[in-house]
């Protein structure tokens, strides 16, 4: 049920700096992370999940291979699918600095099918941070659920037909999209509840009536 992220090579961030890297006192504010995907299979991207580490703004570009481009030069084009997305609303302060983020395909500006490479451009305009990067970067392919705690929807749920309406119904036909979303939510809810037992405690702090303890443990 839990999807595996696509195996890919995440290169270390390359900082972009004007001037001599060694002698320039100012810290770079832009760096680029290139992600190479296994070249044989272009990927239909579903979601990108990562942990932030003091990056303020993120731009994502993907290299796509389009069937119509095959045979021509520049068969693979780079497009921007996320522009200057804010991860830290106040770059001089900690808010958002170490949070987890996920970007799913419908939040992106363009279609992310048939992706062969991904480039993440990180910006941190504030000079107070020593390093900034992204960690635990994972790409998830389309067609599978992406989070551990979500269960797979049966396929028929995604294809709810509009309801057959009796003629004397007041109002119009309910929007099938809306109905299917609500049913999906309800279904996930019931599945989660069925899967989890209650966490109510019993209230005992001793072990078989004994609370005779040694010193406190440091680990």
């Amino acid at each position, binding site marked *: 049920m839990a999807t595996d992220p696509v195996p890919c090579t995440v290169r270390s961030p390359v900082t972009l700096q004007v001037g001599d890297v060694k002698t320039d006192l100012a810290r770079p504010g832009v760096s680029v992370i290139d992600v190479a995907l296994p070249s044989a299979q272009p990927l239909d991207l579903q979601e990108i999940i990562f942990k932030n580490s003091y990056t303020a703004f993120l731009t994502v570009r993907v290299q796509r291979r389009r069937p119509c481009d095959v045979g021509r030069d520049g068969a693979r084009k780079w497009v921007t699918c996320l522009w200057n997305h804010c991860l830290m609303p106040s770059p001089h302060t900690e808010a958002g600095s170490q949070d987890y983020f*996920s970007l799913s395909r419908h*939040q992106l500006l363009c279609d992310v099918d048939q992706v062969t490479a991904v480039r993440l451009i990180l910006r941190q305009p504030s000079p*107070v941070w020593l390093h900034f990067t992204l960690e635990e970067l994972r790409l998830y392919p389309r067609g599978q659920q992406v989070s551990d705690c979500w269960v797979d929807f049966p396929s028929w749920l995604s294809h709810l037909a509009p309801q057959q309406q009796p003629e004397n119904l007041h109002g119009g036909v309910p929007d099938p999209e809306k109905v299917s979303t609500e049913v999906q939510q309800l279904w996930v*809810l019931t599945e989660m509840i069925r899967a*989890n037992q209650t966490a109510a405690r019993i209230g005992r702090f001793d072990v078989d009536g004994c609370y005779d303890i*040694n010193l406190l443990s440091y680990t």
Partner: protein
Amino acid sequence: MMLEEDTGLSLAIAQIVQRLKGSSLHSQLERQARGSLHKPEIKLESLKEDIKEFLKTSGWEKRLQNAVYSELNVFPSPCHPAAPPEHIKEPLVYMRKAQGSWEKRILKSLNSMCTELSIPLARKRPIGEQKELLNKWNEMGTDEPDLTLFRPVYAPKDFLEVLMNLRNPNYENGDQPSFRNHLGLIQVPLKVKDIPELKDYFSELGLNTGQLGIDDSTQVPPELFENEHVRVGQTVLTEQDSAAAQQYVRQGCPTALRAELWALILNISNQPEDILYYEQLKSNVIQHDLLVDSLIYKDVKLTASNDDYYFVFEDYLYQVLLCFSRDTSVLEHFSYNSATPPKSYIRGKLGMEEYAVFYPPNGVIPFHGFSMYVAPLCFLYHEPSKLYQIFREMYVRFFFRLHSISSHPSGIVSLCLLFETLLQTHLPQLFYHLREIGAQPLRISFKWMVRAFSGYLATDQLLLLWDRILGYNSLEILAVLAAAVFAFRAVNLMEVTSLAAAEAVLADLSTLKVMPLLQIFLFATVS
């Protein structure tokens, strides 16, 4: 957290349902629904709708609403599914590490006290001693055990030293003074609100809104505000609506209604099972003696018993705090508290997980001044089990943030930074002067904030302040009040030339009126 709205909502709903599932409210709702089947208005064809209607009219839907509202207030919004549990406790790694080191120091201190005094951390009381304690349960204050060898595990000023040394390793903490270094004692770059944001956040405290603590003074005719406000309060209580009560108390609680309003906001109903639970805790106290009990005794004797307002409640304080230490339900709050409960093993079973226990059972080691969190509540609640529940709820919602290291906006680190930033921005001359004479303002105001001003303000003023803590579900007002107090005594403070003299100017806050100070500082100061 970057969760889309729909997924975030579904996840929140699922988590709340999960938490309410084992609660007594759940079984009561089931029982009510089953009982309603006998009623004539419940028809089989429309069973679900009719039962829902019945629950609405009988007030049970409102109780469920209040429970959901309470869960939303207490638990943080659902995190990203990839976030591990420690991230939910505290997202910043260096703060988690600092909290871990601080806890280790406390454990070492407690262990060494235990070894030096040759007193076990816990022991079962012999039957004779159990009977004796049961007999004098209502007058434990008359006991005068020898507590000279016990010392508090830590005092607020020890904690302040730790906070002063907090550093983000990824931040440029140069020795040279620069715009990167803060001029106060706190050197971590947390986001705090500025005055325009505070004005917006605390908009109900504005000059054009009626307040208890200002507009109920003797010179103001009660028809202008007070009478109507009391009437609205009574309506809120009749409706039993938690959310409405929380909104209402932002303008202050009438004294006669305060106890019920706070209970409504905290969702405390004192059912028979709650009273039974309290009695169970009491029997745990009778059966086992903990080292922590002596720390509690010592704290009460040193603080509340010496206070003019609170010494009469000494017995209540023991009844609440001793039971609090045995309450394992408090362990739940550690999922959103950066702290971790101390662990130990049954004698002879070191390292065996089946014999691992928490110590004390509720995971909270009291420090010097801890009993002052309970003392003001004794004015409102006289029934021990209700007093107990109110305190416990206040602790797991608010007070725990005042003595653990976290980046939360209501955590003590943020409050300290908010205080220092407000003072530096709006009273720069005073801030600079105090710094120059070696009297960093936070050294004086820290103890006020850690205790939520309990024991420093007059009781009626303190309760007006705590009304707003409940109303806004935030402790930020403590930092604002601390800055407002400095602003109020600025003229005297500009003339002092030492830390001791500054302390003397700010030693007595018992004559201060809290609401006018807050209003002037936020809304009427020209900056």
